[in-house]
């Protein structure tokens, strides 16, 4: 292979599978970075102003081995930015969306391969800009991932509000452009390029999740991009969209004014609330596929599952105000948003009941992907129910911006989505690399992660009940919170254990890639189209034209003797004859 050929095949590839793997490797690398940033936060909360053993001197030599309050704000800002924009969103849509959409709908590639390649390469300016924003001396961006103005709009407001904040905004804009390219591509591909016989209601729920996510991104992202440019203009060109009149920050008076800081919150959450669903709907889809496959049963209530995904997406656009109950927004609006927010719990509940219904009466195989999927269901229930506390406006007055909300979104995003992602990696790894991951290592990794994540995150509910505020470098000066340090130390130890457990995963992932047991086309006995392609599929995906005869969840069908009844398998002669008779 010549150098040019290598670059075309593996670097600037137009093949959706290579692009998907590029997203996968990049996001897994950032996952590691984000996790280590979290450990920095946890260290400070457990042992504030103490030197970190061994690595402290190396990392924070300027501060004499300890985390400074300025650096602490950078830590939590970057942890959230990395995890949301570089891990969860791109690993779902970028990695699994890219890899699975054409394979599961029976297409040879995406509708726009060049656009697809660009969607990956537009992540790189974002990687570089956010990286610079983090490492910028003396302190990186530190206004939280929400970047509320005036703090984020005024250069003098904080050390992190200098250049790093500008770079941060530019970086997030690039992520948005990348997502938008993906979104257009996924929608077009799913609508236009399905194999013969693949009706919309024969799509696997993974694809429904990806499809609705793409729609959400297409409608919500422009608002974030516009808001980002407005904030950039406030910072660079002296406009005053988000700056009120006669605002004096850090002893320097603002030249401009007449704007409204709350406007940013409205615009930001108009994107970022749907983004919460962008970060969970594909995971819900993948979990549905895995649960049906390993319960060896059709998914319970396929259409209600599709409608509930759509319902979550639709309602997702009218609940953003629940982030702003105590922001100073008109309290009357708070009531309206409370009702819509309560209602969005309904489709989530329907999904949970349907997953339980799928397991009922099945023959459950406790494989690693199944364990992660079950963990998703079990943990998502916690994350969903804790959301009701925040949706209730009077209760939210007390727990808003405390560790209760931190517990809530970590249960949804880590204990939920990340579990689904681990499951999905184990599930589709054989398709991606033609080899199985090691089941024993997978189960050890699952067990440790499950244990430590609950040790770390469940306790946060209890901190929240005391009113323990988030984003505090040292809360122990307050009498109300002084006695909470031992619990925080327990959580930090669990968090260290959780990150350490990922070594098992990394080892399993890379060793299986080269030395795993080779697998055939359909190692799990699954039904959807990707399993009829070679493992790994070559360029163009399929070595025959797949024709779809039925839905993706025909497990245990009485029509055939086998356990599964794949979408591409023609019906037996007898059934076809009777069908013909019906038609004539």
């Amino acid at each position, binding site marked *: 292979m010549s150098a040019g050929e290598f670059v075309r095949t593996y670097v600037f590839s137009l093949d959706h599978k290579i692009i998907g793997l590029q997203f996968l490797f990049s996001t897994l690398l950032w996952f590691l970075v984000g996790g280590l940033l979290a450990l920095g936060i946890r260290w400070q909360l457990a042992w504030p102003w103490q030197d970190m053993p061994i690595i402290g001197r190396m990392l924070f030599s300027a501060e004499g081995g300890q985390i400074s309050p300025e650096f602490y704000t950078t830590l939590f800002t970057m942890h959230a930015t990395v995890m949301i924009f570089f891990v969860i969103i791109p690993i779902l849509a970028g990695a699994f969306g890219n890899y699975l959409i054409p394979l599961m709908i029976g297409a040879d590639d995406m509708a726009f391969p060049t656009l697809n390649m660009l969607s990956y390469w537009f992540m790189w300016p974002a990687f570089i800009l956010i990286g610079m924003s983090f490492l910028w001396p003396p302190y990186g961006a530190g206004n939280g991932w929400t970047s509320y103005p005036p703090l984020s709009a005024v250069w003098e407001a904080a050390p992190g509000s200098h250049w790093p904040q500008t770079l941060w905004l530019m970086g997030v804009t690039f992520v948005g452009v990348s997502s938008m390219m993906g979104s257009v591509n996924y929608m077009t591909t799913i609508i236009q390029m399905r194999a013969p016989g693949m009706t919309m209601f024969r799509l696997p729920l993974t694809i429904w999740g990806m499809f609705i996510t793409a729609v959400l991104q297409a409608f919500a992202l422009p608002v974030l991009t516009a808001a980002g440019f407005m904030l950039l203009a406030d910072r660079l060109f002296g406009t005053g969209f988000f700056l009120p009149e006669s605002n004096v920050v850090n002893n320097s008076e603002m030249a401009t004014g007449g704007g409204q800081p709350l406007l940013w919150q409205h615009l930001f959450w108009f994107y970022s609330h749907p983004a919460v669903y962008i970060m969970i709907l594909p995971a819900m889809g993948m979990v549905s596929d895995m649960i049906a496959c390993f319960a060896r049963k059709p998914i319970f209530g396929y259409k209600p599952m599709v409608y509930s995904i759509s319902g979550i997406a639709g309602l997702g656009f009218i609940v953003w105000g629940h982030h702003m109950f105590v922001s100073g927004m008109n309290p009357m609006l708070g009531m309206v948003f409370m009702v819509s927010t309560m209602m969005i719990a309904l489709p989530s509940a329907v999904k949970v009941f349907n997953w339980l219904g799928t397991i009922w009466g099945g*023959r459950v195989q406790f494989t690693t992907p199944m364990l992660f999927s079950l963990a998703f269901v079990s943990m998502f229930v916690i994350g969903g129910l804790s959301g009701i506390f925040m949706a209730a406006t009077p209760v939210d007055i007390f727990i808003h911006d405390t560790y209760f909300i931190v517990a809530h979104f970590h249960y949804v995003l880590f204990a939920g989505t990340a579990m689904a992602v681990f499951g999905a990696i184990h599930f589709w790894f054989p398709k991606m690399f033609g080899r199985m991951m090691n089941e024993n290592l997978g189960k050890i990794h699952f067990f440790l992660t499950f244990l430590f994540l609950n040790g770390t995150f469940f306790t946060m509910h209890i901190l929240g009940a005391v009113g323990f505020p988030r984003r505090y470098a040292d809360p122990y000066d307050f009498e109300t919170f002084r006695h909470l340090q031992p619990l925080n130390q327990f959580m930090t130890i669990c968090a260290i254990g959780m990150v350490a457990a990922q070594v098992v995963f990394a080892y399993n992932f890379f060793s299986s890639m080269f030395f795993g047991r080779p697998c055939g086309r359909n190692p799990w006995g699954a039904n959807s189209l990707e399993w009829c392609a070679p493992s790994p599929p070559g360029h163009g995906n399929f070595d025959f034209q797949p024709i779809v005869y039925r839905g993706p969840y025909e497990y245990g069908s009485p029509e055939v003797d086998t356990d599964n009844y794949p979408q591409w398998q023609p019906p037996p002669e007898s059934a076809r004859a009777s069908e013909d008779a019906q038609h004539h």
Partner: protein
Amino acid sequence: MGRFWSLLFLTVPILGVGAFVWAMGDLWPLKGHWLPTNINDHGQVIDNLFTFILLLTGAIFVGTGLTLFWFLWKYDGAKNVQPVEYTHGSHTLEVVWSIIPAATLLFIAIYQMNAWADAKMRRPLLPSGQVKPPLAVVTGRQFEWRIRYAGFDNQLGTPDDVEVVNDLHVPINEEVVLNIQSEDVLHSFFLPNMRIKQDVVPGMQQYVWFRANKLGRYDIVCAELCGWGHYKMRGRLTVESREDFDRWLAGAYEAQNKAEFTASTGDE
């Protein structure tokens, strides 16, 4: 192994409920790991709603957790030799488990509204029917709370105003209204013991009100990120009798005048 994994999922509801019960019971090592003492007459309703939602969600949490465990235990593929239930769902069940949660959620939402209106929309009134004027203006700035009392004429912006920093005193058993605002960036005025939280936005006026019912000193917390010193933005709240409060205010006024006098004579 199916048995082991089923039991692992059974530990979720058991340990989850256990942790909450332990914390609510104020038992070692989770002593004081629950809602801090409520000292506001209007705060109790929020605590009650919190407990109400906790019990309701707790029941659903336990119910789904036990169901998951039971299904995994019973339908373990290694043990269960029955053919699978070949079904694509049940219309009746879908309708039932849509309508019941929908009604419950709607009920929770409506049930909260009165408390919300009391906390944020129905400001206390004077006997004359007019809204009660604020006792003090609290201004957040990086990284302190500046508190300005109207003084004895109850008029803000007059020469007898009293200014203090991070030291809020309020009389017990009286409806107290505070006007809170910000000078620079966003802050959030959080009184954990009062169940009060309100973001302050530069350019906007906010009001909070409460009726303290327990003497003592408590924390004022900033709950909205306001810069590197966010964690240092700690104020103190003192609840005292009306007489002590008046005495303290007079003392603060004296101290302020004396400080001004020395400052102006010191310049010469």
